C-alpha cells in the first residue's frame, strides 16, 4: 500500500522527538541567581558554621535565599537567591561576613530537576554576549622563550669549551644561531663532538672561511616547536591557577591555535582587576637563609607554605639572589639512586647570579619563596553614608623549601632530599607557577555588560518568534494541510536543535541565535521542494497517492545535495572561524542535520498519517489542486 510507513518508522520518529523534548526540557527551568562560596586555597573546607554566618548576614540585610547546600567534599557552598537584583548586594554582605580567604562568586545555579539531570540533560550554555562577562585573548610570546633557550645554549657552549680548553671564539649571530670560530679544523672537530654530546638536539653546520673553521649550532624545527608548545602549556596552567583567584564560576581557559589563549569570565565587570591578576609576573624569590649571628635588620622570618610544616619558619636574608623571571624550567625527576628531586634551569643571567651567590656559600641553606598577591578587604563609610569596599592588595610570601647548597650552582641545579615523588612534583609545579615560561600580552578583549546580555537574549528570542510566526502564516496559507505538516515539522526542528545543542554542550551566542533564525527560513526549503514536486506531479496527472510518493522520492536527492554543500560551508566556518563565527557555524550545522530529519522523515510521517493508505480524491496543498 502506498504512503504507509512501517510501524518502526513511526516509532523512530516518536523516539527521536521524545528524546528531543526530554533533552530540550532543562531549558524551560529558569536558573536561580546564586552565590558560590569557595576557599581561596584548596585546603580550605567550608563547613556548616561558615554557611550559617553567611546566612545570618543575608538575614540581617533582608535578602531572601533558599536551597543552601555544601557539596560532598566541602569545597563549595551554594546559596540560591530569590531575586537577581540583590545578587551583588548579597555578594558583598557575605564577603564581609566571612572575611578574607574566601571567594564569593556570582553564579546562576541550574534548577534542572533530578529526573532530567540524572540522564545528563542540562540547559544549553549561554555565551558571554548573552549573559555578560569578559572575553580575553592573550598571546604567548613564543619567540622570547626560544631566544631565552638559545641564550642558554650560547652560555653552555662557552663554558663547555672553556672547561675542555678548546680555544675559539663564541658568538650569537644575527640569525639566532651560536657561532663558533676556530683556528684549526682539528679544534673544530673536538668542539663539534663536545657540543653534539652535550646537546644532541642541536643542528650543527660546518662552514670554512679563509683562515677560520666555523661551526654553527641551530635549533631544529622540532626543538623550536617543542619549546613553543611548552611555553604555551606552561602559561595555560599558570593562567588556570590565577583565574581561580578571580572567583568566577565556570571560568574558561582554552588554548586557541598556535600561541593564543582565550580566557572567558562570566559575570566579571572589573576588567582592570582581572587583567592585573592574569598578567602578573615574577613571584618567586631565591634568598640565602640568614646566618644565626646576622643582625635583625638584615633578616626576615617566613613561614612554610606547605600545610605539613604549618607553624614552622625560617629567617632569610633581606637581599635576594634572583626572582622567578629567571627560572626557565623546573621538573620533577629522580637522581641515580632513585630518590626524588627537582631539576631547575635558569636563564643565563640567572645562572651567573646563582653561581656568584653560591660559590662562597657551599654548606649554607638557600630559601625559595613563593609570592602570591592577595587582598585585604576594608569597608569605609563615606560622608553621604554609603559604604565603599576598599581592596588593599598585599603580597603574601611563604617559604617553599630551604635546601642545603652542596656545591657551587650554575644555570642548572637540583633540589634533592625530598621525601616523596609527590613532594617533588608539587614543588616543581609551584616553581613553574611562579614563573611565566614566556611573556603574554592581551591582543583582544570584549566585555559585555549584563544589561546588554539580557537585552540580546530578549531581542534574539523575539526575532525567532516573529520570524517563525511569519513563516507559519505563509506556509499554512500557501500549502494548506501540507503547510500545517511542514510547520509542525519546523517546530519540532527547533526543539531538536535546542536539545542537540544542550546535549553536546555547545554554547549559544547571539550569532548562534541568528543561525537559528536563518535555519527556520531555510529548513522549510526542504518542504517547499517536496511540496512543489507534489504539485507538479499532480499537474502531470498523477493520482494524489502517487504524487505524494514520487514527490518525496524525487525531491530527496536534491535536498541531500543542497544541504550537503551548505554543510560543507558550515564546517569550514567552524574550522577556520573564531568566536562569533564558530557560534553561528555550530547552530547552522546542527540546524541542517536536524532539519533534514524533520522535513523529510517527520513531514512524511505526518502526511502518511493524514493521507496514507486510503483512497484520496484530492490533496489540500494549495495552488489550485
Amino acid at each position, binding site marked *: 500500500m502506498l504512503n504507509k510507513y512501517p510501524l518502526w518508522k513511526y516509532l523512530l520518529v516518536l523516539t527521536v522527538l521524545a528524546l528531543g523534548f526530554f533533552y530540550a526540557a532543562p531549558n524551560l527551568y529558569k536558573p536561580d541567581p546564586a552565590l558560590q562560596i569557595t576557599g581561596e586555597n584548596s585546603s580550605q573546607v567550608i563547613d556548616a558554621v561558615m554557611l550559617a554566618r553567611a546566612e545570618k548576614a543575608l538575614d540581617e540585610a533582608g535578602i531572601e535565599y533558599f536551597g543552601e547546600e555544601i557539596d560532598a567534599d566541602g569545597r563549595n557552598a551554594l546559596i540560591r537567591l530569590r531575586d537577581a537584583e540583590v545578587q551583588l548586594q548579597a555578594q558583598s554582605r557575605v564577603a564581609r561576613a566571612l572575611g578574607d580567604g574566601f571567594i564569593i562568586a556570582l553564579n546562576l545555579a541550574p534548577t534542572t530537576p533530578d529526573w532530567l539531570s540524572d540522564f545528563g540533560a542540562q540547559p544549553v550554555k549561554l555565551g558571554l*554576549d548573552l549573559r555578560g562577562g569578559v572575553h580575553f585573548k592573550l*598571546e604567548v610570546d613564543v619567540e622570547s622563550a626560544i631566544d631565552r633557550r638559545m641564550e642558554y645554549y650560547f652560555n653552555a657552549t662557552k663554558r663547555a669549551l672553556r672547561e675542555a680548553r678548546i680555544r675559539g671564539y663564541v658568538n650569537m649571530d644575527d640569525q639566532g644561531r651560536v657561532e663558533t670560530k676556530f683556528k684549526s679544523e682539528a679544534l673544530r672537530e673536538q668542539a663539534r663532538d663536545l657540543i653534539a654530546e652535550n646537546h644532541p638536539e642541536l643542528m650543527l653546520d660546518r662552514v670554512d672561511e679563509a683562515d677560520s673553521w666555523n661551526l654553527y649550532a641551530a635549533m631544529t624545527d622540532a626543538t623550536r616547536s617543542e619549546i613553543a608548545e611548552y611555553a604555551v602549556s606552561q602559561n595555560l596552567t599558570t593562567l588556570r591557577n590565577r583565574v581561580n583567584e578571580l572567583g568566577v564560576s565556570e571560568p574558561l581557559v582554552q588554548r586557541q591555535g598556535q600561541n593564543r589563549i582565550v580566557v572567558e569570565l562570566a559575570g566579571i*565587570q572589573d576588567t582592570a582587576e582581572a*587583567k592585573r591578576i592574569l598578567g602578573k609576573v615574577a613571584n618567586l624569590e631565591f634568598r640565602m637563609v640568614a646566618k644565626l649571628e646576622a643582625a635583625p635588620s638584615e633578616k626576615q622570618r617566613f613561614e612554610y607554605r606547605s600545610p605539613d610544616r604549618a607553624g614552622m619558619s625560617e629567617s632569610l636574608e633581606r637581599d635576594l639572589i634572583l626572582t622567578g623571571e629567571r627560572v626557565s624550567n623546573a621538573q620533577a625527576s629522580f637522581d641515580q639512586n632513585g630518590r626524588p628531586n627537582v631539576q631547575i634551569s635558569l636563564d643565563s643571567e640567572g645562572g651567573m647570579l646563582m653561581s656568584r651567590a653560591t660559590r662562597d656559600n657551599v654548606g649554607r641553606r638557600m630559601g625559595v619563596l613563593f609570592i602570591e598577591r592577595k587582598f585585604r578587604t576594608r569597608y569605609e563609610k563615606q560622608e553621604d553614608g554609603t559604604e565603599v569596599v576598599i581592596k588593599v592588595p598585599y603580597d603574601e610570601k611563604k617559604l617553599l623549601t630551604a635546601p642545603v647548597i652542596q656545591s657551587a650552582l650554575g644555570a642548572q641545579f637540583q633540589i634533592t632530599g625530598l621525601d616523596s615523588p609527590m613532594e617533588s612534583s608539587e614543588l616543581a609545579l609551584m616553581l613553574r607557577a611562579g614563573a611565566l615560561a614566556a611573556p603574554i600580552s*592581551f*591582543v*583582544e*578583549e570584549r*566585555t559585555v*555588560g549584563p*544589561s*546588554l546580555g539580557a*537585552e*540580546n537574549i530578549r*531581542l*534574539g528570542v*523575539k*526575532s525567532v518568534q*516573529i*520570524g517563525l510566526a*511569519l*513563516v507559519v502564516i*505563509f*506556509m499554512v496559507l*500557501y500549502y494548506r494541510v501540507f503547510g500545517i505538516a511542514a510547520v509542525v515539522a519546523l517546530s519540532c526542528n527547533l526543539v531538536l536543535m535546542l536539545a542537540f545543542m544542550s546535549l553536546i554542550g555547545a554554547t549559544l551566542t*547571539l*550569532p548562534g*541565535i*541568528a543561525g537559528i*533564525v*536563518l535555519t527556520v*527560513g*531555510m529548513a*522549510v*526549503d526542504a518542504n*517547499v*521542494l517536496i511540496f*512543489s514536486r507534489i*504539485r*507538479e506531479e499532480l499537474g502531470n496527472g498523477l493520482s494524489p497517492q502517487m504524487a505524494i510518493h514520487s514527490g518525496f522520492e524525487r525531491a530527496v536527492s*536534491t535536498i541531500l*545535495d*543542497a544541504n*550537503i*554543500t*551548505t554543510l*560543507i*560551508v*558550515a564546517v*569550514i*566556518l567552524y574550522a*577556520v*572561524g*573564531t*568566536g*562569533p*563565527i564558530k557560534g*553561528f557555524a555550530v547552530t*547552522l550545522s546542527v540546524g541542517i542535520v536536524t532539519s533534514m530529519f524533520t522535513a523529510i522523515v517527520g513531514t512524511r510521517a505526518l502526511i502518511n498519517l493524514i493521507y496514507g493508505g486510503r483512497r484520496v480524491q484530492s490533496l489540500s496543498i494549495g*495552488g489550485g489542486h
Partner: protein
Amino acid sequence: MKTLDFMGQRKIAILFSVILLAVSIGSLATKQLNWGLDFTGGTLVEVNYSETADLNAVRGTLETEGFAGAIVVSFGTDRDVLIRLPKGYSDQQGAQLLDTLQQAYEGTVELRRIEFVGPQVGDELREQGGLAMLLALGLVMIYIAFRFQFKFAVGAVVALIHDVLVVLGFFSVTGMEFDLTVLAALLAVIGYSLNDTIVVSDRIRENFRKLRKVDPVEVINISLSETLGRTLVTSLTTMLVLVALALFGGEMINAFAIALLVGVFIGTYSSIYVAANALLLMGVNKEDLMIPVKEGAEQEEIIP
C-alpha cells in the same frame, strides 16, 4: 506548466550583472570597505546614559581628557552611545574612558560593552576570512564536479563569486561597517546561494536526460520555470525571517541581517541567471550529462 522564456533575456541579464559587478569592484577598489573593529584593531566602548546623551558634550569631554580621535555616535537609542578609539590606544584605555565619562556626567553611565582588538588579530582575521572563503568555494566546486559535472561546478562557483562580490560591493557603496558577523553572513550567503543553484542545476540535469530532442536554451527555460515556484517561496520565507531579524534583532545583529538579505536577494537572481547563463556560455549539452556507461567515461568528462 507554462514555460517562461528566461534565457530570452539573458543578454540583458549579462549586462545587468556586468554593471553590478563593475560598480562593486570599482567601489571596492576606490572606496574599499569600512572595516569594523574586528579587522582594524582598536577599542570600542558602548555605554548607556540614564538620560538622553549629549553627544557634543561627550566629544568635548573625551577631547579634553586626552582621547583624541575618538569617534562618538549614538547607537540605536538616543541614550546609547558608541565610542570608537583608533588603533594605538592600549588595552587599558577602555576602562579609563568609562571612568572619565562617568566623572563628567551627573546621572549614571552604564557599561554595555568594551571591545579591544589588537592590530595583529585584525590582520590575521582578514587573512583567515579570505582563506575560509576560498576554501569554501574550492571544496564546493569539487563536490559539485563530483556529483554533477565540471561545467555545473564552474557555473555554481561563478554564481557564488558574483554574489559575494555584489554583497561586498553593497557594503562598500553604502559604507556600512564590515565586521565579523558580516563575514559570517557572507559565508552563509555562499551556503544559501549554493543551495539555490544546486536545486536549479539538479532540475537542468534531470531535464537534459529526459527531454532528448529539445535544445539546451529551451531545456534550461523549462527547468527554470519548473523550479521558479520553489525558488521564490524559499527566498520569501528566508527573507521573512531576515526582515524580522533586521527589525527586531537589535543593533548588534543588524548588519548581519542586512548582509544576508542582500545576499539572499542576489543569490536568488544569480541561481536563475548567472549559473544558467554560465552553463550556456560553456556550451552545456546533453552529452555532458549522459549517465556514464563505464567508470572511465565519466573520468574524461570531469577533466575539462
